């Protein structure tokens, strides 16, 4: 591949057409090459039988957008609903249990989106008629999208979404066969998909779910998990309630090191999945680390932008989250934004559309270039080294700390 004669000679290859003056025939092997080429021209195909084959092959696995319809709404707990989504277009693409889709919504004229883990097992997607993904959505206090989804969405409503994405799933190459899932609240959603996927495929994997919730009456998939634990020797369930009612007889408190050791014994040779609200994730990570679990054996699902970025290291001390700055979008316009709001959100709020999926700094779909001014990039931003060199940022987790001009 380092051969560059191809480039220096391309243009003069025309001479090859004229047999009389074709000096190339002097080169050993040249004429045989011409012959072979002619022979191939007679028998070969010109790839035109299947127009758009490449695009169609890609779309089977990774369509850019899914067109979905709510087939069923299931009230799981007082705070949580499961939306069963079927495709109105092509058959739903496959995914690995634990992955999410990014669901697009239009709320009072604002185009935005939120990623949600698929809570159903991958086996349920394939049926061309009834194949579905479940999204299980728990209400977030004051949440823009969860409020809308839980209070306004009905059977028959249509959505578009990205295809499944994300890296939070069991990777048999190095996760081993002893898995422990620490779930908090809505973390039960990917947990159900992963557990059912292991059990439905009959994998020789030992799976332990430690499921922490605030209230006994608000445990998502409680019955499902209990039934599965009953039925399968390789699935164990430990439920923990942090704010029990009086007389609650189960385990209470937090998923601390002591509880983890008590429940699973040694941490040796185990891989831990952690999924819940950010404080839950941070707490669990600390506890696991204190037990000597190496970072590579702790897999934490990403979970949105930091809620209070100003508390993070390197936040410029002169700026407060309530401050306002001017955001100029090259060639498109400008608006005023709050420093404490992720740039992507304020862009959307002001009618700008930026591609996005994870909204957690991980997937890089929301890249924008900062031409002028400063943004704060929290550790969530999985930037490439050269992004920093050339001023690119992940707008979903970037906070403008001065007036800025961006390009995308």
């Amino acid at each position: 591949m380092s051969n560059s004669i191809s480039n220096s000679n391309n243009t003069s290859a025309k001479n090859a057409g004229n047999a009389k003056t074709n000096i190339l025939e002097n080169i050993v092997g040249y004429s045989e090459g011409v012959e072979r080429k002619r022979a191939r021209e007679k028998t070969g195909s010109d790839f035109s039988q299947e127009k758009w084959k490449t695009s169609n092959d890609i779309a089977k696995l990774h369509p850019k957008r899914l067109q979905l319809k709510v087939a069923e709404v299931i009230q799981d707990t007082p705070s949580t609903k499961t939306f069963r989504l079927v495709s109105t277009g092509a058959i739903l693409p496959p995914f690995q249990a634990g992955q999410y889709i990014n669901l697009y919504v239009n709320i009072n004229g604002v185009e935005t989106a939120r990623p949600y883990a698929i809570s159903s097992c991958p086996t349920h997607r394939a049926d061309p008629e009834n194949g579905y993904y479940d999204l299980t959505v728990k209400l977030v206090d004051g949440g823009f999208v969860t409020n809308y989804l839980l209070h306004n969405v009905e059977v028959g409503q249509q959505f578009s979404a990205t295809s499944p994405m994300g890296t939070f799933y069991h990777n048999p190459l190095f996760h081993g066969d002893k898995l422990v899932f620490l779930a908090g609240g809505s973390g039960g959603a990917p947990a159900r998909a992963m557990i059912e996927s292991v059990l439905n495929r009959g994998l020789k994997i030992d799976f332990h779910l430690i499921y922490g919730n605030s209230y006994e009456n608000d445990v998502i998939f409680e019955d499902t998990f209990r039934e599965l634990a009953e039925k399968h020797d390789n699935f164990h369930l430990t439920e923990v309630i942090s704010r029990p009612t009086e007389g609650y007889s189960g385990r209470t408190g937090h998923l601390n090191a002591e509880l983890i050791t008590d429940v699973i014994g040694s941490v040796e040779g185990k891989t831990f999945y952690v999924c819940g609200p950010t404080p839950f994730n941070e707490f669990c990570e600390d506890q696991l680390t204190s037990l000597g679990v190496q970072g590579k054996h702790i897999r934490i699902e990403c979970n949105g932008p930091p809620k209070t970025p100003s508390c993070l290291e390197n936040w410029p001390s002169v700026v407060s989250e309530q401050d306002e700055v001017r955001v100029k979008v090259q060639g498109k316009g400008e608006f005023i934004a709050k420093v404490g709001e992720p740039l992507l959100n304020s862009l959307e709020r002001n009618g700008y559309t930026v591609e996005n999926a994870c909204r957690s700094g991980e997937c890089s779909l929301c890249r924008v270039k900062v031409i002028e001014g400063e943004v704060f990039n929290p550790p969530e931003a999985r930037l490439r080294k050269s992004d920093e060199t050339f001023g690119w940022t992940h707008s979903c987790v970037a906070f403008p700390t001065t007036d800025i001009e961006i390009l995308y």
Partner: protein
Amino acid sequence: MSEFDAIVIGAGNGGLTAAAALQRGGAKTLLLERHNIPGGCATSFVRGEFEFEVALHQLSGLGTEDKPFIMRKVFNELGVMDKVEFVQEGELYRMIVVDEFDITLPASWSGIRNTLIENFPQEEEGVVGFMELCEQVTMESFMGLPQARKMNSEKMLNTNCKNYVKYGLRDAKSVLDEFFDDEQIKTLLAAYWCYLGMPPKDCNFCDLAVMLYAYGVFKPWHIKGGSQALSSALLESFLEAGGEVRFNCSVDAITTDQSGEKPKVTGVVTENGDSISCSQIISNASSVVTFGDLLDTPVLPSGISQDFKSRDLGTSAFCLYLGIDCTPEKLGIKNASTFISNTMDEELMHDTMSTMNPPVATMLTCYNVDDPSFAPPGKSQLSLLCLQYGSVWEDVPVEDYAETKYHFAEHLIEQAEQVFPGIRDHIEEVEVATPLTMMRYLNTPGGAIYGFQQNPEDGPLHRERYDQVSGLHLAGSWQGMGGFQPTYMVGVSTAKAVLKKVRQNKTTQESEAEVANV
């Protein structure tokens, strides 16, 4: 009249260099890329603490500061030389054929000669002659041959390109057989065939010779921050010059005016339905996609159809990107590039590429050997790659895809562990890319990474530049060869040709305007 003098479809190596050269040459240029980041193959992605290099193993053509070679000039002209840092690799490669040999070739022409003679004393004469030939054929192919062709002079060809005439277009295997008896040295010297995708029996000797000589004399390199850093620098240079780019913006159609004898491009339509008019379009997308899917003519232009019929899709690759929690030394990895093989039979290796059988040849790359900054302190990134045709993966039922992919990945790890045991226990992150992954990110048929197959009759002496549609140019691995250096260079050369047209157009328009004013 269009807002743009030129539109470039795709921001891979060919597209980026073309766009930067066009804009810097004064043509107002729009670059459209379907992915969210520039680079095509020349990119990276982040998992955990690691930023994985996707494609670049060894950059050729750069030369040293004292002994610069063409790519320094090219990068200089594109305005990126001060935006990136290059890292020289110490060795060409270590090749290990299990139960046969384990030899490391240094990145030095005389060093290679000494190493070969030391290991194969009985082949000394062959070594000297063969290396001499590689040098001559390389020189002739760069200097004498283009001149002779330009002048169309048989005499110049026969006097200035003696070696090329005799050996250049022969298959590499027959030339190796002519110089050597020992099978081991032949296998060792043919190792770079994997950068071409065709085994020695089916590739031009010239291509192998140029590669050996160029890497040996001008050294193999990689880039600080990976090939992504260079892709981003090229984009930066393009933007600095006033270029306009749109990401997440696939081109869905190239429109033409078909009233004349030859279709003439009029513009593009993007995935958002935007129509943008323009009379000069450079496509970095594959030729099959460009002409077969995007072009709005009812049938393929006949010259294209004829060319395609005599082509085969080139290879794709199966690749494991590993984040490792220890240094390369700890695993015994001493060189950036190690070829690990269980056979010396290249045809068997090539046949295996069309199957799901465990690969018999794997390439292990560890950038940290020459550049510790490629991973967090004390850690390293490895890639394990085997070439494989995409068609095998197109046949895998969707339900079995994930499992098949992990299963196949196990084979690669096993093969590497024959030589470097313990890799698996040190894995901190791993990502698997199949030919379908390549297809997804590159939009190439079969996930091809080097363009069309490079059989001896697919080289530049047998193929013309596509010019069946006026105003439509191809730049990238589907016009010429795959690989970094060729695609960077074809981008620049295509841009130069287009710049001439743009300037001509401008002068005509200006004089027309003048006439109108009078």
